[in-house]
């Protein structure tokens, strides 16, 4: 194995060599075939769909006969009445989530790291990871069982106390907070995995030495625990910033109802609602493309900042 590696690395790529190498790796290619075909058909082929954003596509005329319209759909998007709302919703949800959701897995990992009973720690981990495996349909359903007016626990309690019911799910003021709380409930535990893995590599002697030096628990957490996961925190923060244009699509779609549309519409749901439900395919492609290009530039931007500030980039 290693010999062929060395050989193929040293030889300049020429056609004859290339064919020989293809033959040499015929079994590897055989194994890779399903994966390669998948990427060709389902990932690379749909790229032609990008052109639809620049023409008035009609399924009957096809791609070749549909008229070109240039940037018409992008102009329509940025001048649409919902556009500023979608920008606001995306930003607000992401900032609330950055401020309230992002620190929680760090906090929970530190707490779990302080636990010395292995059994207690393991049971806790198993329980807090579990919600991550529930679908958004289930999480949203659970939200209904908590907050709705007909079966919601809170409204049942209010009712039994003779108080007036609260319409949580159709109140635009509460919407952002409900969505972020759902994400917190579902994924805080899951988010601890990466920190706990980083912490498992910390030498226990560091803590011992700190105790010898008379460091309190809080100081140990600050100087040892948090210091050792700082690179992980920075990396995840950069990734998080790279995804500031993303809002959970299924979650938002499931939480939408006519009364909260002004706070619940984001680019992905708008692309679906306009493109597929209303059949404006080209417009839907333009909306999706617009959002994905912004997302891509955010990721590159975050990566560049990371590299500039001396951290290794992520991609």
């Amino acid at each position, binding site marked *: 194995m290693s010999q062929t590696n060395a050989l193929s690395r040293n030889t300049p790529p020429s056609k004859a060599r290339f064919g020989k190498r293809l033959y040499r*790796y015929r079994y590897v290619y055989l194994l890779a075939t399903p994966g390669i075909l998948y990427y060709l058909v389902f990932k690379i082929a749909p790229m032609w769909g990008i052109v639809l954003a620049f023409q008035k596509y009609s399924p009957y005329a096809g791609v070749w006969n549909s008229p070109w319209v240039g940037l018409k759909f992008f102009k329509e998007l940025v001048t649409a009445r919902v556009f500023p709302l979608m920008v606001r919703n995306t930003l607000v949800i992401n900032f609330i989530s950055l401020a309230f959701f992002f620190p929680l897995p760090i906090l929970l990992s530190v707490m779990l790291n302080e636990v010395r009973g292995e059994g*207690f720690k393991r049971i806790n981990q198993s329980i807090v990871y579990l919600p991550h495996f529930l679908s958004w349909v*289930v999480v949203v359903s659970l939200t209904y069982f908590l907050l709705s007016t007909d079966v919601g626990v809170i409204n049942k309690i209010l009712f039994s106390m003779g108080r007036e019911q609260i319409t949580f799910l159709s109140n635009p003021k509460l919407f952002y907070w409900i969505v972020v709380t759902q994400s917190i409930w579902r994924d805080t535990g899951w988010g601890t995995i990466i920190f706990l893995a980083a912490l498992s590599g910390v030498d226990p002697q560091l803590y011992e030495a700190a105790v010898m030096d008379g460091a309190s628990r809080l100081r140990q957490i600050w100087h040892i625990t948090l210091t050792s996961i700082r690179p992980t925190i920075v990396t995840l923060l950069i990734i998080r910033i790279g995804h500031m244009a993303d809002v959970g699509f299924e979650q938002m779609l499931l939480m939408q109802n006519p009364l909260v549309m002004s706070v619940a519409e984001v680019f992905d749901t708008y692309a679906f609602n306009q493109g597929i439900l209303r059949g404006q395919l080209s417009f839907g492609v333009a909306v999706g493309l617009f959002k994905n290009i912004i997302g891509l530039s955010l990721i590159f931007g975050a990566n560049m900042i990371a590299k500039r500030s001396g951290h290794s980039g992520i991609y």
Partner: protein
Amino acid sequence: MSFQFHQRRSGWDVANYIVLAMISLTSMIPLLYVISISFTDPAVYIPLRFQLLPPKASIAAYKYILSTNSFMNALKSTSFITLAGTLCNLIATYTFAYALTKRGMPLRKLMIGVITFNLIFSVGLIPNYLLIKNLGLMNSYWALILGGLTNSWSLIVVRSFMDSLPKELEESATIDGCNELMSFLRVILPLSMPSIAAFTLFFAVGHWNTYFNALIYLSDSTKWTLQVLVKSLVIDSNSGGVGASGAAAALGDERVLPQETIRMASIVLSMAPILCVYPFLQKYFVKGVMLGAVKG
């Protein structure tokens, strides 16, 4: 465990244990509540009365749901998609990831480039939708199975897992005359078991929880998946304000049972397989995933 440093158990520890126990409780309570209500006897059910435990337990709601065609159809669809889909995922992901560990393979750099690019850019919903349509996969389970055959994240994690395996084992297999096909099957796959266990769980949960793709690709209601059915039972009959008969109407039945217990029982049934399998596989997933992710 040879040497453990003992510190005094302080009030700090006690507080930490209590808060952690409360966090775990918060994770579990919604599920326990739903399970508890789903077992309420219809005879003692009163709408809008708060209860934590059913005054009288019964499995009427479960019997009812399991007797409806729409639920059984959804169960069949979802089971097929999950079993066939997971198997296809595992095959495509592990074979491709193995190929990507072969540094001399022509075009390897290009393949890794395409995979990484797909990690950060997707062409969007509608081109994928049109692709499935053009391939004639509309209303077919294969739209869901082939459409998500593998993904960049899994490939990258599995590849770095395989890279972390000792190279000597495969080399000695090569010397014994194994080609890559045989050493993949006989050396690499057996060594990848912890990773395979983790990804079996991820893929299976992904298929079982499929909602959106099933919604747009499977228009025939007899092919609906559980998540689509549960959504129409719980959320639509709730937010639409259509009224009490929503859930039963969605199940195509008008027998009188409290809507709430039916809805809750359907949620419980839709989570049941995950809750059953999870305890047995969960010890693998951290290991199987972190081996790749920390390095990468």
